[in-house]
């Protein structure tokens, strides 16, 4: 049972924390508005890329059978914390993809975007991490996505059979889902499969396929980044709201304790005075 003074200090520090979490929640709500607008523009910008490769799929209950021999996994996490479960879900999804892929006898490497993901994956899968990208500052622009795509190519992205982007997809302010996209390089070919048999191209040069692939990768990264940023802001908003609510409950119960302690002290003082006075009366 803490003393009155200690409870008083605890109440004050909790009040300060609740002020911080409340203001963080408002800041996140404001930033979320901006992120939602950017995402709304990024979705039609990237719509063609989903027609060219395949639609993003949900990570939950996925078997990842369709992944080829050598995959490069690119999970999108955040640098800052206090954002709820966004990063844990992504690292969990990445670990499950690696486990599934290895159980099928294939290999996977990881390029992590975001410090939080790096910290979490480094503990168990440090050998798989090829590259980390931190301080990828939000809000992202297409230039940022292009830079990320160039980085991926610099480490040899075209040697992999597929690039898998794992990210959180923003559904609404309360809900986000983990999704993954499989992006395979094109081949100008008459074969079926991941290439584009039904399209004519303006140029038969192999570089133009490579250029298109680079542009598509940059576009997909841009969309995933926008989606992940909106999810992160909404998750941070929810986390801070819960923290503020918990802090308020804590302050209420601590205040009750404080009042009880204060009344007990006053009662003790009264008893001392009265018994002292009655002793004198005798």
């Amino acid at each position, binding site marked *: 049972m803490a003393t009155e003074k200690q409870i008083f200090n605890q109440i004050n520090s909790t009040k300060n924390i609740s002020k911080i979490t409340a203001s963080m929640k408002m800041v996140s709500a404001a930033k979320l508005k901006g992120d939602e607008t*950017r995402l*709304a*523009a*990024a979705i*039609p*910008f990237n*719509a*063609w890329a989903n*027609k*060219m490769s395949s639609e993003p799929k949900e990570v939950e209950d996925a078997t990842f059978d369709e992944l080829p021999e050598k995959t490069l996994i690119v999970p999108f996490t955040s640098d800052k914390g206090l954002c709820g479960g966004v990063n844990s879900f992504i690292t969990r999804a990445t670990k499950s993809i690696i486990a599934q892929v290895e159980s099928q006898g294939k290999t996977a490497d990881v390029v992590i975007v975001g410090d939080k993901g790096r910290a979490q994956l480094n503990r168990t899968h440090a050998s798989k991490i090829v590259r980390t990208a931190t301080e990828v500052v939000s809000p992202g*622009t*297409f*230039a940022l*996505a*292009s830079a990320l795509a160039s980085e991926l190519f610099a480490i040899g992205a075209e040697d992999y059979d597929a690039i898998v982007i794992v990210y959180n997809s923003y559904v609404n302010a309360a809900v986000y889902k983990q999704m993954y996209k499989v992006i395979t390089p094109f081949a100008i070919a008459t074969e079926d499969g991941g290439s*584009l048999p*039904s*399209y*004519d*191209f*303006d*140029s038969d040069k192999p570089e*133009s396929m490579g*250029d*298109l692939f680079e*542009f598509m990768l940059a*576009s997909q990264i*841009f969309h995933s980044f926008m989606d992940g940023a909106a999810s992160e802001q909404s998750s941070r908003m929810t986390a801070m709201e819960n923290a503020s609510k918990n802090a308020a409950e804590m302050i209420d119960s601590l205040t009750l304790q404080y009042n009880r302690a204060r009344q007990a002290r006053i009662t003790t003082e009264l008893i001392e005075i009265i018994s002292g006075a009655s002793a004198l009366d005798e």
Partner: protein
Amino acid sequence: MFSRSIAQKVLPRSLTRAFSSEAPSTITLNFSVPYESIYNGASVFQVIIPGVEGEYGVTPNHVPYVAQMKPGVLQILHEEGLSDSEKYFVAGGYALTHEDSVTDVVCPEAVKLDDIDPSAVQSQFEAAKKAFAAADSGTIEQAEAQIDMDVNRAMGVAIGINLS
């Protein structure tokens, strides 16, 4: 009776195409830059695209086609027979025409021709020319200055001033 009803449901797709009288008379245009969707699902009659291998026009029922765009002018003709088309300057990107006449034009940056400031284009071109001369041959700076010059020169051509 059973087999007839099933047969009626399972017409092969190619046959239904031939029987349909509804050929699209417009193309559906999706024209986007990363921060804005300029046209989303708009019905237009024709789009003229500045491909790297040459300009080409997309009309309804065009074959599926993928082209890289060079910095140049994208012209959108909203209705057949209009004399004036809406002109945008695009700084590269890709144009993809799919089946059923849906055309996606995506570029990192696009601006309406009317919004281009000729004096700004002139000064940007001069600055790029200086940078090109100052850069060492074969470096990234020289390549970037070259691209800068080319884009500004193309913008100049689009709005009718000659830069060299």
